[in-house]
């Protein structure tokens, strides 16, 4: 099996419990493969360990077992190869917008002259539409503008992998939409590999090539890897007109509402990869209820088609009963 660009292998995180109880297992046996240039979103309820996975990818947290291999090397700490955009922006408040981006650029290319650094930073701040706020401090910027600075800083260092931890979580819907568009624009220009946490199903469909669905913690797993097979470039205004949009959306919402509570599968195959699903591919017996179907856990032969088939994973078979479009 050829290794993906980023390969998360058998990752688990335990926290010791007080007393003699067994450890709290946040998530277990997480396997993810991310190809170069992929935009991958991960969705799951709070507490399932999404942020911990992202922090492990960033090198800021350590897994209890398992590891992450990127570009043939194991991740063992923070690195400029992996840029992070935090939910709370994490700008240095004593520096202006430009200086904040300079901070990243100077760390990435220590030998650049001051003029080179500033030109590079300014270019990225222009890309996120902040040409007129270069010299303002974060406290003088709105939440949306701060997050733009943070995105500019991450993109400006041109990391091999960009990690976004709910970057739009704290923003109002209008601002969020505008910055999503900007994110798509930069991403398509730079062809970055992106791993992003989100709570927003529509955001995930708009941005991602693939959405990883995580079951609830403790003992969370990545249950499904849903392919978002919608044509690019996507636009917020028109994507909902695509015939497949609601099919995908219903599948994702259905999982979050109905399936994420399912207990983790019993067979703890260390190398179990998440079930791959493409909601746009018709399943042979798809009835009126739009049943969610899976391949057997981890037994997907390499290079298998995206067509799913039900076999040996009854515990994960989750039938949609509710009208998920109410969301």
């Amino acid at each position: 099996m050829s290794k993906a660009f980023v390969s998360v292998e058998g990752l688990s995180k335990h926290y010791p419990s007080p007393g003699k109880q067994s450890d709290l297992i946040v998530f277990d046996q997480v396997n993810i493969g991310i190809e170069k240039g992929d935009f991958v979103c991960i969705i799951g309820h709070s507490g399932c360990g999404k942020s911990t996975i992202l922090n492990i990818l960033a090198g800021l947290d350590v897994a209890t077992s398992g590891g992450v291999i990127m570009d043939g090397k194991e991740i063992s700490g923070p690195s400029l190869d992996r840029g992070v955009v935090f939910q709370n922006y994490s700008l240095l408040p004593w520096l202006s917008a430009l200086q904040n981006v300079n901070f990243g650029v100077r760390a990435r290319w220590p030998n650049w002259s001051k003029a080179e650094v500033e030109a590079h930073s300014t270019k990225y701040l222009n890309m996120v539409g902040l040409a007129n706020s270069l010299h303002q401090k974060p406290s003088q910027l709105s939440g949306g503008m701060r997050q733009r600075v943070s995105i500019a800083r991450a993109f400006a260092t041109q990391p091999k992998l960009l990690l976004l931890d709910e970057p739009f979580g704290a923003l109002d819907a209008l601002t969020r939409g505008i910055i999503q568009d900007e994110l798509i624009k930069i991403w398509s220009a730079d062809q970055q590999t992106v791993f992003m946490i989100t709570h927003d199903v529509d955001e995930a469909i708009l941005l991602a090539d693939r959405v990883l669905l995580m079951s609830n913690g403790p003992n969370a797993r990545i249950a499904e890897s849903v392919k978002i097979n919608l044509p690019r470039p996507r636009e917020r205004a028109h994507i909902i007109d695509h015939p497949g949009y609601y099919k995908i959306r219903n599948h994702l919402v259905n999982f979050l509402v109905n399936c994420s509570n399912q207990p983790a599968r019993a067979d703890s195959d260390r190398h179990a990869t998440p079930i791959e699903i493409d909601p746009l591919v018709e399943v042979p017996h798809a009835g009126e209820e739009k049943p969610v179907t899976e391949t057997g856990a981890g037994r997907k032969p390499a290079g298998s088609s995206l067509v799913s088939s039900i076999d040996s994973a009854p515990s994960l078979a989750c039938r949609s009963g509710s009208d998920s479009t109410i969301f």
Partner: protein
Amino acid sequence: MTLNVRAAIVSLLLLFVILVIWEALNQAPAATTALSEYELLMGGADQQARVPPPSKIIGHAYDELSRPFYDAGPNDKGIGIQLAYSLYRVLTGYLAAAIVAIPLGFIIGMSPLMHKALNPFIQVLRPISPLAWMPLALFVIKDSEQSAIFVIFICSIWPMLINTAFGVATVRADWVNVAKTHELSQLMTAFSVILPAAAPTILTGMRISIGIAWLVIVAAEMLVGGTGIGYYVWNEWNNLDLNSVIFSILMIGIVGMLLDLALSGVSRLIQYEE
């Protein structure tokens, strides 16, 4: 009228009222007969000593301030010279304390081990009155001048040390993570992230310290003698020159205020808004 203008008017009014009452309460009774030579020498026929009224003090202040740097022997130096001695001692001891306290505070703030290990020492040494160190300092250092500087050092070290450690320990984890994800070295992180992030807290400690140092120098100089504003106050008391005593009390207040203003100016420069 802005708030500032109104506040200034009230302040001036209060000052005026206080000065008038002070002046009125401290008038010597007018002499009914011609003063004898002895009475002239003693400054009046009054049997009771009085606090000098503001009018006299202002006159005296004018005299002193018009020639602040005269030096007519050990017992008679200008106020400027005395203040300069005190400032020299305060600033020397204070800077020495900053040089020790800020790096040490960084270590304590960044290392929970050092925090726990050094905390008992700090907690025991901090409440000691700085003047209690004086005899030991005199014995060890064998120089009164340097002992005074040591006392300033020991009293101004604690607020700076504790505030630096606190400021460094409470730097937001996000900012440290930013440094980590940009692969900054420990030293670079300390200078480019932790120092600016903790600077306002450190400056608060430095401001408290300079205030304490200025309080302590007066007492220390009363003990060691020789020069300085503290010595000057005590010496003028021994000379029974209350004009000079009150004048120098005012000067101590004004210089202390200027020191604080200087540091608050610096702290405004490095203050940031989250």
